């Protein structure tokens, strides 16, 4: 089966714009809001959301990048350790509403890691979750607050989100794993 294109550049942009509006609609107090992207796809998505939120609200907004590698629950499985990249959370998370951002929501395990990671920085007022694609197959009780698109998938498929910053184009595809 050939790769299916789920979203093109325009569709991605429209979804991201809508999510930015929804985040602002739900969180009137922009000063109390912070956007934290999960490396690496989530960080690109977060960057775009931040630009749009700044544009729509005319206000600066706190932001950060989270690397969840050190919190993974599969590290003890045999094999080379995944390379760790820097986590950058330079603001005080206490009493803030944190919007975690990831490109694809799948089993929910990454989000579990990210929740632990954020809480190690302090006690936020609340944590919300924004994802571009929700592909189902949850293994943990985690539900997103903001979704770009729900895509029913089977387990032997993979969802890839490309961002022009890293891959030279904006596109979401579903491909079958051989």
């Amino acid at each position: 089966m050939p790769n299916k294109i789920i979203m093109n550049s325009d569709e991605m942009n429209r979804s991201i714009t809508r999510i930015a509006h929804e985040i602002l609609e739900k969180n009137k107090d922009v000063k109390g809001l912070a956007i934290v992207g999960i490396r690496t796809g989530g960080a690109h998505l977060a960057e775009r959301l931040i630009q749009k939120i700044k544009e729509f609200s005319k206000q600066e907004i706190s932001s950060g990048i989270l690397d969840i590698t050190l919190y993974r629950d599969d590290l003890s499985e045999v094999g080379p350790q995944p390379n760790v990249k820097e986590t950058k959370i330079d603001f005080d998370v206490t009493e803030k509403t944190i919007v975690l951002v990831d490109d694809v929501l799948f089993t929910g395990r990454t989000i579990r890691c990210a929740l632990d990671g954020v809480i190690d920085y302090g006690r936020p007022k609340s944590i919300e979750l924004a994802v571009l694609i929700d592909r189902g197959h949850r293994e943990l009780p985690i539900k997103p607050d903001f979704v770009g698109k729900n895509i029913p998938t089977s387990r032997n498929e993979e969802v890839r989100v490309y961002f022009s910053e890293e891959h030279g184009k904006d596109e979401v595809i579903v491909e079958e794993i051989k």
Partner: protein
Amino acid sequence: MTTAVAATKWTKKDLVGLRDLSREEIELILDTAKSLQEISLRPVKKVPTLRGKTIANIFFEPSTRTRISFELAEKRLSADTINIQAQTSSAVKGETLKDTIRNIEALKVEMVVMRHPASGAPHRLAKALDVSVINAGDGTNEHPTQALLDMFTIREKKGKLAGLRIAFIGDILHSRVARSNIWGLTKLGAQVVVCGPRTLLPSHVEELGVEVTTDLKKAIKGADVINLLRIQTERQKECYFPSIREYANLYQINKPVLENAKSDVLIMHPGPVNRGVEISSEVMDGPFSVILDQVTNGLSVRMAVLYLLSGVRNSGGEE
């Protein structure tokens, strides 16, 4: 700093020396240390990465800095730790090194951090045991994590290592710190010069690709970094040099000597320092000194080593 080695994967069970590592592996450790640096700045200075793993720190030689640094690094990664000092262990009752470690392994320890007075001791253990072995200093051979933290500190301050001139002053002959640094720095493209009294310079050291001199002025001219080694005053009994006072006169780094150095030179020292012997107090506490940064960076570097090694298991030990 950009990470150019994202594709490198760590596959070694042990860290016994920088002699055995490739340039890419050294850079992977340094990059990983950079990523782990911020953990020590958080309100909760701990990540769950090594939860449920046990690490034994076995020191057959006295150590304060290195032992505390390893233990803290282990704790920041949530590992459980046990500390064994040779003076209080069964080693004094005649148990062999291998038997001591075998017993610790039977307690299901995953990693062993060891300092030992015999050069090559960790290499033998690494071969004999399934668990990961980290060399925390073996005789006069290597002290890899010290060299890695020195390199990390230089990279933090200067933004690079390649092309820099790094001078080591003092007792090169007995220095495992110098030896590890020479292996690492030359692999990363730095230019190394070693300087000290002739009796404290190992013969054939130039074969490692370093410049050798007994003239302090020559060594520090154009140096980007001056890394001082402790004058092991106990060696003085072995008559390597006439007196501490004469050594200080000829090789001490003090303010007048630094007038010949670059204006942005870094002064480093692995500690413990003999103030007034290899370095004057004025310089040690002065603006060029990054001696305390080295201590801070040691933590991140050791966390990086523990993290990377924790993913690798041996399929079976060999005798």
